């Protein structure tokens, strides 16, 4: 068993060890080892040229990553919290995502932008956002959100080796959860079926996977329903085949995410499912999500976030449709 913080730290250390062009930088990642200690010990081990602190400038952090990548480096910058990607949004949307197109395929930017993301840790405002839709909607980015330590390790190693830019969203509420070291090897672009079931497909990613699995236990114990849980791992590209194949078996689909409902991943998944599995559907695709409000204050977040009750409510509605 290990924590996601340990897994990511090990992935970064191994990437730094394996490839001299890998550099890790951001706010407080060097001396402090990151506000979540994810980069703990990397500066001591690899030196301040491979792991360094930058001034407090998110747009600049992504900007210098682009310059470094243009020179042949493989940068792994960190943006300290989800909402702090917003000052860097122009660099991400106008340059990081478009550089390959803007150089006629000559320059691909192998940058992995790590972002501690999502809610559930009792943080003050601007520290609990789900920004994934912005990035998934931006052509040219790959977007990854692991749900457990082993996946975080293997997905991060792959992201760093990939030649395309990757936004790597780490569920900070799962940072300290201990999960098994072994499991099915996660791969960018491929969803993983976490639990087999024949009655309803629940699609989740990042922090919502644990919630979906806990709901599946309750549904089995209390109602005798067999819930299939799909962990997307990769939000862009989306593994449409795995989602469709599952819904073709179950005929029912519920999507779970923390992000606000409107135009969240659930909207895309519902569209894809009705397009590819329309005649197999026994009920409408439902969404157990956050609400279309700003993220609430910490004392109210438990009520706001999708929990077992909300997911189970959707499962009951789809089963009794």
């Amino acid at each position, binding site marked *: 068993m290990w924590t996601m913080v340990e897994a990511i730290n090990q992935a970064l250390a191994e990437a730094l060890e394996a490839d001299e062009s890998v*550099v890790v930088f951001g706010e407080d990642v060097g001396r402090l080892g990151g506000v979540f200690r994810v980069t703990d010990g990397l500066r001591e081990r690899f030196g301040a*040229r491979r792991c360094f602190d*930058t*001034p407090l*400038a998110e*747009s*600049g952090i*992504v*900007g*210098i*990553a*682009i*310059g*470094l*990548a*243009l*020179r*042949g*480096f493989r*940068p792994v910058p960190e943006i300290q919290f989800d909402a702090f990607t917003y*000052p860097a949004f*122009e*660099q991400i949307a*106008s*340059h990081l995502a*478009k*550089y*390959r*197109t*803007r*150089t*006629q*395929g*000559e*320059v*691909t930017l192998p940058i992995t932008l790590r972002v501690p993301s999502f809610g559930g840790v009792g943080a003050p405002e601007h520290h609990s956002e789900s920004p994934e839709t912005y990035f998934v909607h931006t*052509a*040219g980015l*790959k977007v990854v959100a692991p749900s457990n330590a082993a996946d975080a390790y293997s997905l991060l190693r792959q992201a760093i080796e*990939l*030649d*395309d830019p990757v936004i790597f969203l780490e569920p900070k509420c799962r940072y300290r959860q201990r999960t098994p070291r072994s499991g099915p090897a996660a791969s960018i*672009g491929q969803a993983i079926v976490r639990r087999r079931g024949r009655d309803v497909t629940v699609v989740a990613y990042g922090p919502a996977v644990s919630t979906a699995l806990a709901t599946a236990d309750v549904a089995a114990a209390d109602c005798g329903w067999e819930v299939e849980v799909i962990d997307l791992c990769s939000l862009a*590209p*989306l593994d*449409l*085949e795995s989602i469709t194949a599952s819904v073709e078996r179950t005929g029912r689909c519920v999507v779970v995410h923390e992000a606000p409902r409107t135009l969240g991943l659930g909207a895309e998944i519902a569209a894809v499912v009705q397009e590819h599995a329309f005649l197999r559907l026994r009920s409408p695709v439902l969404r157990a999500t956050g609400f279309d409000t700003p993220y609430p204050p910490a004392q109210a977040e438990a009520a706001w976030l999708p929990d077992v009750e909300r997911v189970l409510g959707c499962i009951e509605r789809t089963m009794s449709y």
Partner: protein
Amino acid sequence: MTSTSVMAPPVLHVIGPEDVRATECPVELDLPDDQLVTLYETMVVTRLLDQELINLQRQGELALYPSCRGQEAAQVGSVLALSPDDWVFPQYRELGVFVGRGIDPLGVALMWRGVVHGGVGLVEHHSAPLAVPIATHAPHAVGMALGAVLAGGRDVSVAYIGDGATSEGDAHEAFNIAAVLATPCIFFVQNNQWAISVPLEEQTRSTSIAAKAVAYGMPGIRCDGNDVLACLAATRRAVEYARSGRGPTLIEAVTYRMEGHTTADDPRRYRSQEEVERWRELDPIARYESFLGRAGLWSDDLAARCHAKGVDAAASLRRGVTTAPLPDPAQVFDLVFAVATPELRRQAAQLVAEQHVRT
């Protein structure tokens, strides 16, 4: 030294601005004759190409074009101070930089024709693609320069930005990070007095743009941007400073945008013809011709030869622009990722099928 002189550094001139007479050169400029001639030729070719691009736009061959007329000295003087290994990060008005770098101007024109994004054939000449969002390429130059430090290279990076760009957050972040990390980066600001319709005095309360360098802890140089030798000298000084490991320099080249912001702009709505005429008297090419004359290097022959070279380049550019094949609409799918995703392949197939139905 008074605080005023600290805040507004004196303008570096090599060729006198007031009466088009040479003043004493305040910097060492050991230039062989052929390089003095190259500066002239590059400026002349740039101007003729610039005019041809304006013509092409007027004739409907280009969607838009931002002229660099009046800024040839700033662009050519700075870029010819660099080595081929150095990197340039242009905004979008840097035709003189491209010509000085040996980049085929057709690669730039194809962007303004709407055939490609970013330009073609720039990276092989160590130029980043054209950047339309203002100042966002400045941090890229800092990253490249940081890479030189990390990789033990000797090259420097130059970010070309304008006076308006110095109001952007990315310029500030780039200046600051470059100085803190002591990267070999040069910020070459062409202060052409106008950011579309907003004059410099409404862009900043600073006594100069070069003065801003003080607060970042880097040298600021203010040079006569219509004096090609002053721009060369200022850039050389910054290059030497950067190569010696001392970090970035902010150069303010004081110049003037003779044309509108782009071909879509009407500058008569916001500035006077008198102002334009005052700057026309400081025309960088005329001033340099006068200098070359005093140096015994100018002749009708040289002028004719440079003009002919520019005319040939313009004709070749026109041929290239007007015969450029249309882009294949399906190609956009191949450019997104190193390997197209299954969804992109499906969407590409849809577009190809639609094309077949239409043809």
